[in-house]
């Protein structure tokens, strides 16, 4: 008996609604020209990251001191840097770091923050209090400074940078997850499931998470851009990726010394950072409008 009700209740609202909703969201997203442009830009970026070794015309690390500081030309479309390396190739390879930091750091933040937020929102009480006060503390430190503090403690490098960015992005996810869980928690289909004897884990994964997806998705698309920026910022001040690995922020940082005569060294990596963030912002805007038509002007 209880088995039957359980099945029924889990099939009640969410799954049925979700399918048609997905198609509707996708349709609305596609109707938004800017969002589609953003998606195409992101695809270009991911393509460059995956196939860097086939697209890049030169080796990104091999030095060629005879060719140093060349202005953009037919051979080197973006010119060469202070060690004679082709900037275009380095920018292409740099997308690997940015894309992976963007995805992994946000993944860490999303899983960790989402998990903590889910627990806080679902159980409430003192557990909620402890978790949320901790998030308040993390939010009281501007994220770039928290990144700096964490990386300076753990030591620089790709992995530590991802951890740092993940941790400093986490509180947002925690808050979003918590508030959407609190709003879903008391709705009838959850009550029904509970009454039918479903476990907390079942309720959280089957009912609550699907229903809190919308704000999470928007936040993810926005914070991938922020993570890419944080990665570049940390490398720019010398805490992130160590040379000679091509990374956009680090390239900017070395380019500073040659800014007077060779501004192209700073211009192109910076443009690449902006390209990536711009793409994510367009997608984020489009997703927000598509997921919540009420918010659209």
């Amino acid at each position, binding site marked *: 008996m209880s088995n039957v009700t359980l099945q029924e209740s889990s099939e009640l609202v969410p799954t049925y609604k979700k399918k048609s909703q997905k198609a509707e969201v996708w349709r609305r997203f596609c109707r938004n020209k800017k969002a589609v442009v953003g998606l195409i830009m992101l695809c270009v970026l991911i393509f460059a990251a995956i196939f860097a070794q086939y697209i890049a015309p030169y080796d990104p690390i091999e030095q060629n001191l005879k060719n140093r500081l060349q202005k953009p030309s037919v051979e080197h479309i973006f010119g060469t840097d202070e060690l004679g390396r082709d900037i275009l190739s380095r920018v292409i390879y740099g997308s690997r770091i940015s894309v992976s930091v963007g995805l992994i750091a946000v993944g860490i933040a999303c899983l960790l923050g989402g998990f903590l937020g889910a627990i806080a929102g679902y159980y409430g009480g003192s557990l909620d209090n402890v978790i949320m*006060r*901790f998030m*308040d*503390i*993390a939010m*009281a*430190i*501007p*994220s*770039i*400074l*928290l990144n*700096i*503090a*964490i990386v*300076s*403690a*753990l*030591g620089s490098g790709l992995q530590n940078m991802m951890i740092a960015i993940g941790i400093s992005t986490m509180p947002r996810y925690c808050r979003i997850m918590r508030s959407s869980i609190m709003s879903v928690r008391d709705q009838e289909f959850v009550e029904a499931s509970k009454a039918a004897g479903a476990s907390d884990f079942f309720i959280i994964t089957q009912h609550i998470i699907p229903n809190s997806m919308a704000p999470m998705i928007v936040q993810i698309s926005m914070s991938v*851009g922020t993570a890419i*920026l944080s990665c*570049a*910022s940390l490398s*720019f*001040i*010398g*805490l992130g990726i160590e040379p000679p690995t091509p990374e956009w*922020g680090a390239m*900017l940082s070395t*380019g*500073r010394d040659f*800014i*007077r005569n060779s*501004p192209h060294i*700073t*211009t192109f990596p*910076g443009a690449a*950072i*902006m390209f990536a*963030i*711009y793409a994510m*912002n*367009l997608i984020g*805007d489009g997703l927000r409008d598509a997921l919540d038509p009420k*918010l659209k*002007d």
Partner: protein
Amino acid sequence: MLKYIIRRVLMLIPVMLGVSLVVFTLMYITPGNPAEILLGEEGGSKEAIELLEEEMGLNDPYIVRFGRFIWNLVSKGDLGTCYATRQPVSQRIAQTFPNTLKLAGLSVGLAVVIGVVLGIVSAVKQYSIFDNVAMALAMLGTSMPNFWQGLLLMILFSIHLQWLPASGFSSFKHMILPAVTIGTSSAAVIARMTRSSMLEVIRQDYISTARAKGQSEIVVILRHALKNALIPIITTVGIRFGVMMGGAVLTESIFAIPGIGKMMVDAIKARNYPVVQGGVLVIALAFSVVNLIVDILYAFADPRLKSQYR
């Protein structure tokens, strides 16, 4: 209202304690022996290091050290000793922080004025050319890494046109480029926020009511709509203040401004961690205080909240 303010100030204490704990813990696990680094290469005999370790209490357990850290911080404002200059960190912060605050203040002012004006005009002329151009620029502004923008501005205005100085902090002229650099992304965010908030408000019935009274459009927008739209904008400005303090860290080092940010970036390169962490703590405190002020302003702007806290 006073009760509310007092309560909010009291709530600041646990948050600051928490921030100190986080910063202290990070300092605690940071590799490197402070005593060894402080003594440097010349005075680095084993006995001297051990003596200094004992003196600094580096051998005490974590919790005792944290207690001492807080006690020193609260009673003497002591944040540790700078490895490079052997000055107290607090003294170095006192020298640099006012410059950062000046810069951040100017940037906030710039961002608010530009952002709110652009946002209002875009909302009122929704879908016009102005709106489209302003919002496209705002989108670019939010996507622009500010250290890159700082470098571009420097290339254009200092190197090519030679209108403005590229580094230093001795006159108002020196502040223009950095303030623009720090303020741009916030201006963009505030413009977008203002626009959507205004659009939301403009649709409300009370705006129709105001128009139905025969009120002129400009008064409807500025008195009726903006006053309501301001409430979410105030929050955004508060959050952006934190971002701008963070932005100052990078921007100051680009324009060689003797602020807390440049001090921190230099300290990072020199692995001078007490300075880094002291800086984080001070900026977090400043950010929390600003957010407190924002919350109080918020309560003043919204009579519904104000009467709640009466």
